[in-house]
């Protein structure tokens, strides 16, 4: 480390101290439940603690048609929750029972760890989520609801903290329903907007490539926002699937950074890596 940087270090340290203090204030004295890193420096740098915070809940929404079908958000959530499913059961609370287990299995999600619950209305879905989050042995809970207001959000957060479970709330509008006013504030740790993105099959091959998603981190407590192109690289491969394996790569692979600064072509992942590294 050179001398002139030596003057900057104390300032950076000061910043880090302030950040830590702010984080402690925001957490309200809660314990840190750890993070789930994506394994890509660009994404992990935006998230507090270097990964998706566990013991919190995350909001995932779709775009355009997906507001009603919520297929891309569901696929993306299953990919994010797959590492958690290795640690315990995953409860998926639905309003419509159109979630199809073979599809999740193909993405690499361990479906034998999945319990599906079909709730009759919005309030029931939220209360089932709360109940499941506070249960020993449940590592993640996914709920498909229209929206969660501030009170519901706080309740979810309290339930998450009881057993360190992680919640995923997929925002999904009932078919043909009118758009309700979106909740203004939110207790979610992160808020994502997920859309399918055109896939890129390997050169010389026909058909579709591995599923790709455009993921926008719209809001992140104690972190920064960002937008990325991610690929479920191990989807539809049998080799990548072993429940006993604990140390495996995150099922989502970064393809490109779509943030404000750049418009990098899809091939330049390695360049980005080099820049970041």
């Amino acid at each position, binding site marked *: 480390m050179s001398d002139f940087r030596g003057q900057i270090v104390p300032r950076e340290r000061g910043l880090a101290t302030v950040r830590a203090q702010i984080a402690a204030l925001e957490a309200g004295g809660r314990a840190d439940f750890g993070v789930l890193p994506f394994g890509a420096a660009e994404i992990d740098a935006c998230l507090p603690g270097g990964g998706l915070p566990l013991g919190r809940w995350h909001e995932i929404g779709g775009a355009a048609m997906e507001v009603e079908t919520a297929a891309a958000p569901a696929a993306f959530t299953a990919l994010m929750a797959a590492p958690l499913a290795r640690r315990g059961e995953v409860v998926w609370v639905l309003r419509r029972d159109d979630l199809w287990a073979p*599809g999740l299995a193909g993405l690499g999600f361990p479906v034998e760890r999945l*319990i599906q619950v079909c709730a009759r209305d919005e309030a029931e879905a939220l209360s089932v989520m709360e109940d499941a989050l506070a249960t020993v042995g449940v590592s993640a809970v996914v709920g498909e609801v229209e929206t969660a207001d501030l009170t519901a959000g706080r309740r979810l957060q309290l339930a998450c903290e009881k057993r360190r479970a992680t919640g995923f709330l997929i925002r999904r509008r009932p078919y043909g329903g009118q758009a309700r006013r979106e909740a203004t504030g939110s207790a979610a740790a992160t808020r994502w907007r997920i859309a399918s993105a055109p896939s890129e099959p390997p050169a010389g091959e026909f058909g*579709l490539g591995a*599923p*790709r998603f455009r993921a926008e981190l719209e809001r992140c407590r104690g972190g920064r926002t960002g937008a990325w192109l991610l690929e479920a690289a191990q989807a539809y491969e049998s080799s990548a699937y072993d429940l006993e394996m604990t140390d495996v790569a995150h099922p989502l692979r970064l393809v490109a950074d779509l943030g404000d600064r750049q418009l990098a072509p899809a091939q330049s992942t390695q360049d980005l890596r080099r820049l970041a590294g």
Partner: protein
Amino acid sequence: MRRLSAVSERAHRLGLHVGQKATDAMALAPDLVTAEAQPEADAAALAALADWCVRFSPAVAIDAPDGLFLDVTGVDHLWSGEAGLLADFRKRLAANGLPFRCAIADTPGAAWALAHYGEDGAIAPPGGQAELLKPLRPAALRFDPATWAQIERLGMRQVGQLMSIPRGPFARRFGRAAMIRLDQALGRETEALTFRRPPSPWFARLAFAEPISAPEDLARVAHDVTAQLCARLDAKGLGARRFEILFHRVDGQAAPVEVGLALPGRDAARIAKLFAPKLEAVDPGFGVEVATITAESVEPISGRQARLDAGREATVEEGLSPLIDRLVNRLGEDRVWRAQPVESHVPELAVGRARPLGKASDARPWERETPRPTRLFRRPEPLEAVMALTPDDPPTQFRWRGQIHRVRRAEGPERIGEEWWKGVIEDVDVSHVRDYYRVEDADGGRFWLFRAGLYGDAATPPKWWLHGVFG
């Protein structure tokens, strides 16, 4: 007027008979000792005897006031034949000091006739009851007293005489009910018996001095009666999957409340908590005076301890099963499930629903290499304005829910045919096929489409459907 309702063997020898006036009997036998008839006690004793008879056959029906029917179909081999069964039955009954008569026949009617009027211990060979019935008195056929009296009046003293009368005149003269009795005895008509269900030994009861009706009282009673039963289950190391509380009201009605558990349990506090929300639906009417609880599906369970150093699996179950119970009892059994593979090529049949804590199925797991959608619509949605270059090509453009999608990439077809080996062979048609394509539109949306039917049949051109979305 007092009449004799039963007589001992000695009294019978003295000429006394059932239905005789008590005064006449006293005149015939001045030292006669009588006791008040107790029909309720008789019925209870008969019920107890019926429960005792379960050792010979699981299906025992009470024939009030003094008979029992045992369905011994398929159990006689345990005594190496019906003769052995009957001998053992007689020996054990005699050891209890009970006077009895019994017979075995194909039909309950014939068995009744032989036991009451035939030779004691008769065994009618299969299909041979008619011969044995012929010499018996018509009363053996369980006619109602009026019919019986008329038959006797006409001078018919044997069943055989009745059997020789043509059916038409018989029914006209003695009525349809008499015809049915004859047919039942001969096996031409089936007879329904009400078999006694052995009562669950897992039963507890709470009675109150004053009828209760307040909701909080019901909740407390539900807890107390559950605790009573659970203490007994605990002492035997058992647990039950299903509990039912009956609130017996003052007006004789009973309101049932039932809960089910994912794993057998006996934790009274937990079970009472499951009952609590359901008690709102109980209408106590003018008050509840007795509450009873029964446990079903009782199985041994080990007294698991929630220890920190316990195995991981045990902890998972301890935490999960109460959650599953709460959800199932609140939402209903069909709303909580674990998806389970079913070996079927038809997509909508490939997923079965299993109980969340049940055993994993042995079916082959879904193939992970063939892409399948994240969301599968229960009813495929029709596609409009589908354009394809050639009949076998995937579409280049389609409209779904009012929106045009231009296909950029496509995979397929994957032909899925009818499972002809499962249905009626006549209904199978080669045109019942679906060609599935996985397509991606210009925005990256991935869809699972299929074309139903084949080209070439002008009457039913193939149609395009959207079955699922990959996301």
